[in-house]
């Protein structure tokens, strides 16, 4: 994937669909469909006790990861918050091993030690998903610092939610990123809520681009997080610039999560902070539906081909579940493994 990305990179994004070739367009659709189909069955297995802990769905936000990740080049790094399924899948991490991690099995990407919140794929530059709100932002700046230190032209993408904008360490880290000029792409997935708290109820400043650009001398902009091509176009331009200057950048993607914050945030709970009408309003801008229409309108593909792709994604997920469910649990001894590298 990363290889391909380097070539697309040269495709001029002038005309409709930004002149992206068919293969690329279909891959973007494939990624978004895979993410959605991957998460849809999870509730069922969670209820059945196959999964536990906290599980946070990405459904509704697919266009963000999908618009960004395929533009990675070899050596680029990424770190995310706990809402990380979409990023691992967009990166090409084996769905089997992702599902196995959610099932807590030895075959999972973290050997069952992490679970949904803590996916990882070192091979592809994914330094992991972590659970402390805002806690990964300094880590991402540090990884970007390492890239600069090593004289690499790569970047580190740091993904987080609007709630983390109120964490002190985020302020400290952005100031350091602006001060040391390290190639960290801050990606704020503004889905309107930090759990049950709307942005305006947790932030004195709801214009985050203004807060960051004025606060830390970091360039920034906002993009429609429901439009995969818009996210991709912005990211394409930003990454080219970052690889050139090595400087940080702040990208806010305005998006929305359809499901509750986590499994426990059921329909009943959600009534405390949002309406069905609001959810429907956003569903009308569904990133997959929207992109589907674009592709069909432009004659890039057909209903039949897209349905086949959908079936294929469902099959991949079915296999992943089968794989996960038949995988062994970690051995009892593994409890004591990897606390230290050497003891």
């Amino acid at each position, binding site marked *: 994937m990363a290889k391909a990305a380097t070539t697309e990179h040269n495709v001029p994004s002038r005309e409709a669909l930004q002149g992206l070739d068919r293969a690329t367009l279909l891959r973007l659709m494939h990624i978004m469909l895979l993410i959605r189909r991957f998460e849809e069955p999870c509730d069922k297995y969670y209820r059945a006790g196959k999964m*536990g*802990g*906290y599980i946070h769905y990405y459904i509704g936000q697919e266009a963000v990861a999908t618009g960004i990740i395929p533009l990675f080049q070899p050596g680029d790094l990424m770190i995310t918050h706990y809402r990380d399924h979409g990023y691992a899948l967009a990166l090409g991490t084996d769905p089997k091993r992702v599902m196995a991690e959610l099932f*807590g*099995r030895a075959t999972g990407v*973290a050997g*069952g*030690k*992490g*679970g949904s*919140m*803590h996916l990882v794929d070192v091979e592809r530059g994914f330094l992991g998903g*972590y*659970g*402390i*709100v*805002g*806690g990964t932002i300094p880590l991402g700046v540090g990884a970007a610092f390492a890239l600069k230190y090593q004289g690499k032209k790569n970047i580190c993408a740091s993904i987080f939610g609007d*709630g*983390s904008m*109120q*964490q*002190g*360490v985020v302020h400290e880290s952005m100031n350091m990123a602006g001060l040391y000029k390290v190639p960290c792409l801050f990606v704020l997935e503004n889905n309107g809520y*930090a*759990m*049950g*708290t709307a942005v305006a*109820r*947790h*932030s004195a400043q709801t214009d985050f681009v203004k807060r960051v650009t004025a606060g830390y001398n970091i360039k920034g902009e906002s993009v429609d997080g429901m439009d995969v091509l818009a996210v991709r176009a912005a990211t394409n331009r930003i990454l080219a610039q970052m690889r050139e200057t090595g400087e940080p950048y702040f990208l806010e993607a305005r998006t929305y999560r359809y499901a509750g914050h986590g499994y426990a945030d059921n329909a009943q*709970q959600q009534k*405390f*902070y949002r309406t069905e009408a609001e959810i429907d309003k956003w569903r009308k801008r569904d990133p997959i539906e929207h992109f589907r229409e674009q592709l069909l309108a432009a004659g890039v593909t057909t209903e039949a081909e897209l349905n086949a792709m959908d079936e294929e994604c469902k099959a991949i997920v079915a296999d992943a579940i089968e794989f996960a469910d038949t995988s062994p*649990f*970690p051995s*009892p001894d*593994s*409890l*004591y493994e990897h*606390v230290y590298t050497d003891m």
Partner: protein
Amino acid sequence: MATMRYAEALRLAMTEEMERDPNVFLCGEEVAQYQGTFRVTEGMADRFKDENHGLRVLDTPISEAGIAGLVTGAAMAGLRPIAEFMTWSFAILALDQIVNHAAKILYMTNGQIKVPVVFRGPAGTGNQLSAQHSQSLEAWYAHVPGLKVVLPSTPADAKGLLKTAIRDDNPVIFMEHAGLYSQRGEVPEDPNFTVPFGVAAVRREGKDVSLISYSHAVGVCLSAAEKLWQEAGLSCEVIDLRTLLPLDMDTVLRSVQKTHRAVVVQEEWKNVGFVSELASRIYEGAFDDLDAPIERVGGPFVPMPYSKPLERAAIPGEEDVISAVKRAVA
């Protein structure tokens, strides 16, 4: 007396104290409009919404250090705040405010400024929350002069100890256990009912071995004690410390002087944990009464893993207590 859940008992304690004293207010993440992440504060925002500019039950941003500092400052200026941490694992972010400010200000000002604040919320392990969300770290707080550390194990204590905490003029670390929220029990409705700090409870009388614990682990000790009685005829005395700071050593030593054997049990990492302090004090206070080394039971020295079987192995259970008791009487 009324039967209610541990979570309801906490809510009742806060509501009663807020009705009793207009200076008591509650803030934290999702405590108001969302009715509390674990529903502990359900209905409280409505109950007090028209008072003090709507500040009595207040939602906050995800800013643990800021929250801890805000309530500490409010306490310095005369209020009696209750701050809820969504979990104690997140309180690590607020430690400078709690330990370097709230806990020390009375002393630094030579007694001129008191900080009557309660820091509360769920702590402990369980539910596959994995490494970053499964901590309580009570040993850290009990290490710090100026703090009081409270961990209720029953609904009645949840109410009585929280009321005492809210009325206390010092910063109180009040650790609830998520695994106890739905536990039911008899709770006195009398608004004057409180449970004093520094008085341990003997939850079960016994003569062979003293099991000393607190919070969720008390229940583990009780079921282990019952099993040991049924299956081995061993009579265990189970002591619930209730508060680690102040610590009621009298009750503990009295029990050990009777049983001559002690098993100390906690859920968290045993290494440099509270049970180590407890064991040391028992040795110092009852050295000649002990017929065997004290058995310390605590979590294995590993971050909490996600996978269910691994997590189960990482949380001290009935079997761990039972084998410790058997070693103690061997």
